[in-house]
């Protein structure tokens, strides 16, 4: 069951009265709205204590980062990286990684009230770039998260927007450590190749190159943290990362969460909201939920994260339910191999990034997963300004068509009110088609 923020006020009182125990970041959801996260007023949340903990964990990351900073820990901003360098950072005893690109949700959550996009505009990063440009505004304003001690960013097979944004960051005087993530090419005939998480093949030489690049990152981290960072530490961190990933895989299998909370939970795989042990506890609570999805709802596979979280509510309001998703970071959820040298395992994961390879490979995996989940519809959610979207969306639509899967594209800007009529019509029409196919 889902509740509005106002309904959650009452629900929170009931849970507390029933003896709910909360971690330090616990409390009513209302306080986040009062602190400026005004979009919460427009969302509906799962009514479980586990969901409350998830939301509180997500919305207190800024406080957590400040605590880390005050405790003297190294704060590493890992740009673009979705599940590789953060694992290396968490191998250090006194460092945390965080995801500056995550600022792309601030314009939504704060309903533009934080001024990040306007500040990015003033820096020359306008609407032609994807909403990740909010991170430039956020850093310029200095209001959302502590300035990282260090930025690390891949270069090469990353999207044009991120490339432009991260270069602008250096123009703003930030030191960025770059490492090379080359395009994932297919192995030549007879060339030695290895299998990546997710099933793609890559030439061994490419994997070794990326492992060497990550070796440079390891050396930098060790030097900045003033500690040794060897294979045992990295292997232990990979093992801990897999513990998070196993829980997310279980959540994917059970599909007990509403779409909104599911997306938030999967985002934890990226950087653990700056506290990996607590992230595990949050996921454990979610995994313990026992809810059956509505069998009448149209089984929907969703592609790409949504800039406005409200879109996930809309999906269910109109009669859909999430049976699968690809939020652009399957490499942060696929299990990492633990029987090979750690840097090679991380290199394989980095190369498994869907944006590092051809859109057709991404499309094939999406269709494979959608079919396995018996999806009736694939929704490709476009991110305004995101340079990869037009290419990926076409490839996904084509692959769906050849597999007999219905596929639609929708655009989800940071606030959907202006496009809600179009969004609802597209989704409703797709559901109507799926419904007619059932009969």
């Amino acid at each position, binding site marked *: 069951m889902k509740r509005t923020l106002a309904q959650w006020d009452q629900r929170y009182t009931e849970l507390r009265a029933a003896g709910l125990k909360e971690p330090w970041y616990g409390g009513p959801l209302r306080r986040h709205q009062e602190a400026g996260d005004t979009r919460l007023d427009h969302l509906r949340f799962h009514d479980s204590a586990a969901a409350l903990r998830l939301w509180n964990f997500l919305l207190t990351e800024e406080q957590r980062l400040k605590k880390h900073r005050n405790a003297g820990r190294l704060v590493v901003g890992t740009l673009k990286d979705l599940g590789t360098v953060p694992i290396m950072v968490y191998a250090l005893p006194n460092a945390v990684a965080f995801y500056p690109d995550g600022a792309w949700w601030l314009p939504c959550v704060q309903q533009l009230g934080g001024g990040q996009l306007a500040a990015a505009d003033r820096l020359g990063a306008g609407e032609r770039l994807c909403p990740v440009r909010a991170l430039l505004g956020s850093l310029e304003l200095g209001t959302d998260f502590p300035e990282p001690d260090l930025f690390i960013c891949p270069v090469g097979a990353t999207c044009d927007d991120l490339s432009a944004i991260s270069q602008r960051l250096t123009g703003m005087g930030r030191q960025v450590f770059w490492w090379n993530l080359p395009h994932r090419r297919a192995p030549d005939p007879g060339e030695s190749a290895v299998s990546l998480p997710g099933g793609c093949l890559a030439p061994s030489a490419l994997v070794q190159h990326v492992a060497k690049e990550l070796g440079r990152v390891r050396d930098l981290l060790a030097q900045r943290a003033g500690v040794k960072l060897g294979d045992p530490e990295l292997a232990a961190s990979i093992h801990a990362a897999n513990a998070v990933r196993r829980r997310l895989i279980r959540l994917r299998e059970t599909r007990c969460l509403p779409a909104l909370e599911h997306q938030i939970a999967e985002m934890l795989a990226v950087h653990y909201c700056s506290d990996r042990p607590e992230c595990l506890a949050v996921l454990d609570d979610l995994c313990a939920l026992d809810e059956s999805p509505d069998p009448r709802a149209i089984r929907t596979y969703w592609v790409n994260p949504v800039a406005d979280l409200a879109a996930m509510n809309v999906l269910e309001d109109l009669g859909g339910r999430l049976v699968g998703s690809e939020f652009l970071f399957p490499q942060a959820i696929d299990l990492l191999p633990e029987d090979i040298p750690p840097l090679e395992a991380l290199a394989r994961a980095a190369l498994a990034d869907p944006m590092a390879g051809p859109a057709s490979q991404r499309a094939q995996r999406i269709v494979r997963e959608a079919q396995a989940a018996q999806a009736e519809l694939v929704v490709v959610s476009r991110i305004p300004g995101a340079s990869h979207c037009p290419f990926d969306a076409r490839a996904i639509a084509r692959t769906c068509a050849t597999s007999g899967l219905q596929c639609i594209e929708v655009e989800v800007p940071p606030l959907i009110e202006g*496009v809600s009529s*179009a969004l*609802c019509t597209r989704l409703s029409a797709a559901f109507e*088609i799926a419904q*007619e196919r059932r009969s």
Partner: protein
Amino acid sequence: MITVGIDSGSRSVKCVLWDGSKILGKSRVDAGLNAQATAKQVMDEVCAWAGVAPEKVRAICATGYGRTRIAATYRVTEITCHARGIAHCLPSAQSAIEIGGQDSKVLRLGSQGRVEDFAMNDRCAAGTGRFLEVVAARLGCTLEHLGRMAQSSTDPAPISSMCVVFAESEIIGLIAAGVQPGSIASGVFNAIATRVTALAGRLLTQPIAFTGGVAFIPGMQEALTKTCGSQVLIPKDPLYTGALGAAMIAGERSRTV
């Protein structure tokens, strides 16, 4: 069983009264601020014209942009409703182009008026009736006259901008350069047809139906036929296919309740 379909579009609200086999009446009014009041007005008009007491109406199905703001038994998207209406009016159609005031759609049709796939242009005025309105206003003529001028021109002006705002600037430049209004009109019709055909992609298979308010404007059918490379057919009452489909769906669903 008598049912009503109301298509609440961005420019007008259309209503069809249906008895399960034929249209008893139909009408349209300009869209107002209050979708419910406008819907009631047009429905009352149709019922009065057809001599049917409103209480005899078994079910109402609302469709179109304003469907969620109308009191109705069912609410179904215009995608589904147009397909059903087109299948009734033009049973041979395999695909359909619908160009309305604010958006355009392309449907691939299956059996019994089911939609197999669709594409919509709903974020940009290019490829919609709004584009034609802007051009007609700039050239100081009616939409019908604009269409007649386009039909009579043999020398369409190239319009390179797909954005209506930029295209308007381009048209101002063409007027200043002394290009004939007919050439400009013809160029604009071609630009819209090109835009809609590009939107259609793989969806267009023959025979192609053409509906929506823009189907009434002379010249658009020819422009689409040219860019699609095959004849597009306009069913009878192209403005009402959505409302008709809605009325038919209301009938089907009421029978199964």
